[in-house]
C-alpha cells in the first residue's frame, strides 16, 4: 500500500492522473465561457465599442483553480484514500493474548475487548494460532492455542472478575508453560506482586508486548466510623496530578427506593495517592447506607459495601434513680455510658418520648415499675423487635415486681429480697461466673477470673428457668436471663449496671456481652478466631463493574476464609450474612495500597487505542461534487446569467453549503409573570366573546379604581388571561364571565384551574343572566356553567348565608347585586358542625376562603367604567339604581378583601375571648 503520512491509497497509480492537471489548466484557460445571444435594439449604440480588458476572454484563475481542485478530488477519491490504514504487525508462530481480567480492567473493558479483537484479526491475517487467557480465570493444562477465529467468537462472552489473580495458581500455571510463543499482555495498570515473576516466565518463551490504558484507577477503602463521622479513603494509582472525585453514599430511602443519600468530594493533592473524605450524617440516614462508590468509575474497587460495622444502634438509657448528684461512679448508667458511647448512639429522656423515637435497645437500670400505658407501649415496641435490657438494683429488689406472677416485662419470676454473698455479714466468698453454655449468645467468651458477684436478685425456680438463663454464677444461680417476646426479647441482668453488686461492669467481659447482645456494635474487621467455625451465606455479590447482584445459589463460605479479607473466585466480594450480623467483603481492605504497575524498561508498552481505518473515498467525491456545484454558480455568475430568480436560488444554495443550521430556541416570554406579580392585579378569563371580554376588563378597571380610592389595596390595570396558555397562579382573583358559546377548556387548562382552586385562588363565575333566569335555571349560560364547572374541583356549595364572612370583610352587606339584583349567589358551604358563636350574631366559621363565588348578577357591567372614568352601563333607575351600583362596588370590595385577607374577619368571633384573656 502506498502511504502518504497517515493516508494510504488502495489504487495509487490513479494518482498519476494528477500529472494531467497542468495540461487541463492550459486547455481550460484557453476556452472562454460560451456567449449569450441577446436581441437588443440598443446595439446600434454599441457598435464600435471594444472590450478594454484582453484577459477576460480566458477563464479567470480562481474558477480554474476550483475546477482543478474538483478534478483533483475526483482523482484522489478514486485512488482509494484510507486514513490510518491498519499497519500489519509482523510475526509468526503462536501468540498468547494475556488479559489481567481484574476489577481494574472493568473501567474500560469494551476498549480492551476492541483491542483484543484487533489483535485477533491481525493474528488471523497472519494465520497465527492464538491463545486467549485471563489471569483470573486460568485454563487447565497449559495454553490452549487455537485458530484466531475460534477466539473471536468467544470474545463477547468475556467478563472481568472482581478479584485479583491467585498468586500460587498463577505461579503454577507460569511454570507449566512450554514451547515458543509471543505474548501480548493487556495489563490492567495496577501494581501486583505476581507481575514480575510472570513476566520473566513469559519472556523465557518469546517476546512480550504490554498494552496499558493511561486512564486513572480509583479505589475506595471501607468506610470507618470515626469521631461521629464516616471517614472514607479514596485511592488512586497515579499521583501525578491534582484530581477530584465524588464519593456517593447509596441506600434505600424511606420509601424503599434506592437513591444517593449523600455525596462528598475527595480531592487528591499533587503527589498524594490517597484522599480522605468525611461525611457527617444523622444516624437515621447513616444506617440506611448500603454502599459507597466513586461516582463515574465503573469498577468494583471503587465501590465499598457497608455492613453492620457502620450501623450504630440507638440505645435509650433509663435509670430508676438519678438523684445522687456528684457521685458519677455510682450512677447506674455510668458504666453503660462508658461501654456504649464509642459504638452506639445514646438517647435519654422520658420513656414515652423515647418510644416515639423507636430505639433499637432500651436499657432500664434498676427501674421497678412502669405505668400501664408505658407497659403497653413497651410491649408493642417489643413485639416489633425491640430489645429491652433490664438491670437489677436495690429498687427492683425492694419492689414486688414479678414476685407472685411473672411480670410481662421480666424474663423470670424473682424471689423476694435477693441475696448477698461474700459481704461482711455473710458467709462465703463472692461468686465467680460459670463458663457460658453453648446455647448462650455469650458462648465462647472467655470468663475472667476476677469478675465476681457479691449481690444479686434471685430467680424463682421454674420449669423454664434453665432455658431462659443465658449466664450463671459458679453455683448455678442465673446471672442473666432472657425471654423472647414477639420478635423482640427481654434480657435481665440480675446485678446492677454499676459496680455496686458485682465487678462485672468493670471488666472487658461486660462490653463483650453487650456486643453479643447486639446492644453495641463490633469493631470493623472480625478476626479469624471470631469467625472460626462459622459459615457465612453470601447475600449480595459485587461484580467487577461495581454492580450489585444477587448471590444465586452460591454455597456458604467458612468464616476463616472470610476473615482473610482477600476476595478470590471462591470468595467473591459482596455482603455475607451470618447468624446475627452481616459482614461486607470489599476488594480493598483498610490497609491495602493501590499503585500503578511498573514494567522493566525492556518491555514495549503500547496504548489501548485502536486507530480505526477511515475510508476517505466518499468524502473526496463529495467534496468534488460540492466544488462542481460551486463551479456552476461561479460560471453562471461569470457569464452574467446569475440574476433574477437564479441569483436567489444560488444564494440559498451557498447559504446551505456554508452555514450550519442554527436556531436557538427562544426563551419563554415572562412579561405576563412580571406584570402579574409586581403588583396586585385583578384578572378576568377570556371568554372568546370580544364584547364580554371588553366589559369584564372595564368592570375590573372600575373595581380596581374603587379599591384604590377606598382601601389600601391598589391594584394595577387588570389583565386578561387565557385558560389555555397563561399561568394562573399569579392571580389572587379571577373573574370568569360565562357565555353560552364559550369553548370548553382543555384538560391541561382544567388541571391548571384545579391547582389554582386548591392552592387558594378564587374564581367569581358570572352567568350574567339574573334578569331573565333564576340561578340553576335553564338559561343557556347556566347550562354552560354546569358543563364548564363539572371537571372543576369545587366543594359543596350553598347560597351565601347571612353570616358568611363575605358580608363583613370590608362593608356590612346583605345583598350582592351587580347590574341585576338577584339573591342567588352561591359560595362554598359552611361545615355542618358550625355553631353559633357565643355572644356573636354569626357562627364560628373561621376557616378557608371560598374557592368559587357563583352568581348571575353581571357584576362587571355594574362596575364597568370607560377610559374617562364614566359608567358604561345604567344600573336600575334613578337614585335606587345608583344605590344598587354602590352596593355592587361594595360587594366587589368585600370580595377582593375576602380573597386577600382570608378569614380574618371571621376570626373576630374570638375577640371577646381575647379581650377576656387580656383582662379587659
Amino acid at each position: 500500500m502506498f502511504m502518504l503520512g497517515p493516508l494510504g491509497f488502495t489504487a495509487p497509480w490513479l494518482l498519476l492522473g494528477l500529472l494531467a492537471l497542468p495540461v487541463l489548466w492550459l486547455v481550460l484557460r484557453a476556452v472562454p465561457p460560451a456567449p449569450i445571444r441577446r436581441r437588443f435594439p440598443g446595439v446600434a449604440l454599441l457598435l464600435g465599442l471594444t472590450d478594454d480588458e484582453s484577459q477576460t476572454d480566458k477563464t479567470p484563475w480562481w474558477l480554474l483553480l476550483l475546477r482543478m481542485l474538483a478534478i483533483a478530488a475526483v482523482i484522489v477519491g478514486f485512488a482509494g484514500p484510507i486514513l490510518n490504514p491498519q499497519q500489519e504487525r509482523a510475526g509468526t508462530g503462536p501468540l498468547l493474548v494475556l488479559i489481567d481480567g481484574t476489577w481494574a480492567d472493568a473501567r474500560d473493558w469494551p476498549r480492551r475487548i476492541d483491542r483484543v479483537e484487533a489483535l485477533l484479526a491481525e493474528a488471523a491475517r497472519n494465520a497465527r494460532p492464538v491463545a486467549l487467557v485471563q489471569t483470573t480465570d486460568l485454563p487447565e493444562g497449559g495454553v490452549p492455542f487455537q485458530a484466531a477465529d475460534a477466539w473471536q467468537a468467544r470474545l463477547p462472552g468475556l467478563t472481568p472478575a472482581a478479584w485479583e489473580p491467585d498468586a500460587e495458581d498463577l505461579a503454577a500455571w507460569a511454570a507449566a508453560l512450554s514451547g515458543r510463543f509471543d505474548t501480548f499482555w493487556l495489563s490492567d495498570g495496577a501494581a501486583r506482586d505476581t507481575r514480575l515473576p510472570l513476566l520473566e516466565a513469559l519472556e523465557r518463551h518469546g517476546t512480550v508486548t504490554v498494552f496499558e490504558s493511561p486512564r486513572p484507577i480509583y479505589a475506595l477503602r471501607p468506610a470507618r466510623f470515626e469521631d461521629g463521622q464516616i471517614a472514607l479513603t479514596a485511592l488512586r494509582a497515579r499521583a501525578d496530578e491534582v484530581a477530584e472525585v465524588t464519593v456517593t453514599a447509596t441506600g434505600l430511602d424511606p420509601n424503599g427506593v434506592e437513591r444517593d443519600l449523600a455525596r462528598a468530594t475527595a480531592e487528591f493533592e499533587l503527589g498524594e495517592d490517597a484522599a480522605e473524605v468525611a461525611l457527617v450524617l444523622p444516624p437515621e440516614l447513616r444506617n440506611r447506607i448500603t454502599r459507597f462508590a466513586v461516582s463515574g468509575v465503573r469498577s468494583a474497587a471503587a465501590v465499598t459495601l457497608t455492613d453492620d460495622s457502620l450501623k450504630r444502634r440507638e440505645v435509650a438509657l433509663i435509670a430508676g434513680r438519678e438523684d445522687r448528684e456528684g457521685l458519677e461512679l455510682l450512677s447506674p448508667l455510668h458504666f453503660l455510658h462508658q461501654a456504649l458511647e464509642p459504638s452506639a448512639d445514646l438517647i435519654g429522656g422520658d420513656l414515652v418520648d423515647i418510644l416515639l423515637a423507636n430505639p433499637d435497645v432500651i436499657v432500664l437500670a434498676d427501674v421497678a415499675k412502669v405505668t400501664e400505658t408505658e407497659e403497653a407501649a413497651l410491649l408493642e415496641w417489643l413485639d416489633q423487635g425491640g430489645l429491652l435490657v433490664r438491670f437489677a438494683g436495690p429498687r427492683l429488689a425492694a419492689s414486688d415486681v414479678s414476685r407472685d406472677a411473672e411480670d410481662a416485662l421480666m424474663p423470670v419470676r424473682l424471689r423476694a429480697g435477693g441475696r448477698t454473698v461474700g459481704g461482711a455479714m455473710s458467709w462465703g466468698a463472692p461468686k465467680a461466673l460459670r463458663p457460658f453454655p453453648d446455647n448462650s449468645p455469650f458462648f465462647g467468651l472467655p470468663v475472667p477470673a476476677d469478675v465476681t458477684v457479691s449481690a444479686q436478685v434471685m430467680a424463682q425456680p421454674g420449669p423454664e428457668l434453665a432455658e431462659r438463663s443465658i449466664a450463671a454464677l459458679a453455683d448455678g444461680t442465673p446471672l442473666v436471663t432472657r425471654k423472647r417476646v414477639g420478635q423482640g426479647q427481654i434480657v435481665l441482668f440480675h446485678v446492677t449496671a454499676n459496680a455496686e453488686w458485682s465487678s462485672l461492669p468493670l471488666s472487658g467481659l461486660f462490653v463483650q456481652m453487650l456486643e453479643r447482645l447486639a446492644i453495641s456494635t463490633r469493631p470493623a474487621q472480625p478476626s479469624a478466631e471470631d469467625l472460626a467455625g462459622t459459615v457465612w451465606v453470601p447475600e449480595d455479590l459485587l461484580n467487577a463493574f461495581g454492580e450489585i447482584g444477587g448471590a444465586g445459589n452460591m454455597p456458604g463460605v467458612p468464616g476463616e476464609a472470610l476473615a482473610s479479607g482477600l476476595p478470590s473466585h471462591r470468595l467473591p466480594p459482596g455482603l455475607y450474612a451470618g447468624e446475627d450480623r452481616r459482614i461486607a467483603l470489599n476488594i480493598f481492605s483498610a490497609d491495602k495500597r493501590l499503585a500503578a504497575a511498573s514494567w522493566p524498561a525492556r518491555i514495549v508498552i503500547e496504548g489501548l487505542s485502536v486507530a480505526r481505518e477511515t475510508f476517505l473515498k466518499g468524502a473526496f467525491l463529495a467534496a468534488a461534487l460540492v466544488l462542481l456545484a460551486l463551479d456552476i454558480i461561479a460560471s453562471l455568475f461569470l457569464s452574467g446569467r446569475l440574476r433574477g430568480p437564479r441569483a436567489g436560488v444560488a444564494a440559498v444554495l451557498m447559504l446551505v453549503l456554508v452555514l450550519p443550521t442554527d436556531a436557538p430556541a427562544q426563551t419563554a416570554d415572562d412579561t405576563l409573570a412580571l406584570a402579574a406579580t409586581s403588583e396586585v392585579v385583578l384578572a378576568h378569563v377570556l371568554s372568546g366573546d370580544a364584547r364580554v371580554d371588553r366589559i369584564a376588563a372595564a368592570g375590573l378597571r372600575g373595581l380596581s379604581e374603587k379599591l384604590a380610592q377606598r382601601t389600601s389595596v391598589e391594584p394595577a390595570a387588570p389583565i386578561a388571561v387565557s385558560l389555555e396558555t397563561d399561568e394562573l397562579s399569579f392571580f389572587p382573583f379571577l373573574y370568569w364571565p360565562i357565555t353560552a358559546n364559550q369553548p370548553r377548556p382543555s384538560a391541561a387548562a382544567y388541571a391548571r384551574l384545579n391547582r389554582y382552586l386548591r392552592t387558594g385562588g378564587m374564581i367569581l363565575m358570572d352567568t350574567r343572566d339574573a334578569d331573565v333566569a333564576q340561578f340553576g335555571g335553564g338559561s343557556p349560560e347556566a347550562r354552560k356553567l354546569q358543563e364548564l364547572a363539572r371537571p372543576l374541583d369545587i366543594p359543596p356549595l350553598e347560597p351565601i348565608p347571612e353570616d358568611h364572612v363575605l358580608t363583613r370583610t370590608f362593608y356590612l352587606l346583605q345583598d350582592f347585586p351587580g347590574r341585576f339584583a338577584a339573591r342567588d349567589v352561591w359560595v362554598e358551604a359552611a361545615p355542618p358542625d358550625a355553631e353559633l358563636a357565643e355572644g356573636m350574631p354569626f357562627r364560628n366559621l373561621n376557616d378557608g376562603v371560598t374557592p368559587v363565588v357563583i352568581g348571575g348578577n353581571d357584576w362587571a357591567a355594574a362596575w364597568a367604567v370607560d377610559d374617562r372614568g364614566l359608567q358604561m352601563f345604567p344600573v336600575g333607575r334613578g337614585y335606587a339604581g345608583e344605590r344598587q351600583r354602590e352596593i355592587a362596588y361594595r360587594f366587589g370590595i368585600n370580595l377582593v378583601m375576602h380573597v386577600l385577607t382570608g378569614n380574618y374577619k371571621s376570626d373576630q368571633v374570638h375577640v371577646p375571648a381575647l379581650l377576656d384573656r387580656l383582662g379587659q
Partner: protein
Amino acid sequence: MSTPAALRSRAEDLAAPLPPLLAEAEHLAATVLLGEHGRRRAGMGDEFWQYRPATPGDEARSIDWRRSGRSDQHFVREKEWQAAQSVLIWVDDAQSMRFAGDAGRVSKAGRARVLALALSVLLIRGGERVGLSGFDLPPRRGELQLLRLAEAFSHEGAAPDYGVPEARGMLPHSRALFLSDFMGDMAPVEAALAKAADRGVKGALLQVLDPQEEAFPFDGRTIFESMSGSLRHETLKAGDLRGRYLERLAQRKARLADLTRIAGWHYDCHHTGESAQGALLWLFRALERVR
C-alpha cells in the same frame, strides 16, 4: 392590440379622463379651414367676436347698423376667427420598436401607437384634423378618421430595423408628432426636422424606450443583435460596456433635445415601464404650448 376595435377601445379608455384639446393655431395661412372653435381674434366665422368703431376703408355693408344706431359712431361687427388645426403623426413601425425587454411589458411600438391614437382621439374631439405624415392618410376630422388611424396603426408588415421619420406631405404651419425610439441613424431625423422647420411646422418628438435600453443590465460574454439580426456586436464583458453605452445614449438624447429646440419643437423621453398617462399628458401640453 392587433384588432382595430381593441386598439381603439384602449385608446378611448386612455383618452377619457382628459378634457378635449383645444389646440391653438399660431399661424394661419392658406390652409385655413373653418372649425368649430374660435381663435380668440377677429376673423371669419359664425360667432360674434366684438364691435369696433368703423374706420375709413370699411365697407358700408359691414357696418352694424343696429349697434351704430344706439350711438353717434358707426360700429363694425366682427366675428371670431374660427379655424381647425392639422396634426400629422408619425409612429415608427420599425422592427426595433417591437422590442420588449420583459415578457410582461408592452413593446415600444405598442405603447407608441396607443399614445398616438389617444392623442388623436383628443384632437379629433377638439375638432382638429389628424392624419399620418406621408400621403397615406391626410388629415381629416371626424370619428371615421379615428377608425382609419387605428387601422393604419394596426398594420404590421415587413419593416427595416430602424425607422426613418416621414416628413413628406406636411402642410405648412401644421403640427407634427414623431413617436420613435430614435435608435437608428440620426441624419434622417435631422433632415426631417429641418424640413419641418422650413415649412413652419411645429410639434413634439417623443422618444419611447424600454427600461432595459435605459439600464443596460447585462453582463458576461454576450452577442447583441438587432431585431432582424442585421446588426450584431459581440462582447466578452457586457458589464464593462454599460458606462459607455449609457454615455452614448445620453449623447443621443442631448442631440435630440438640441435639434428639437432649434426647430422649435418639444422633446421628451418616455419609458414603457412607466404609465402611458404621463406621456399623453405631456403630449397634450406640448401641442398646446406652441403659441
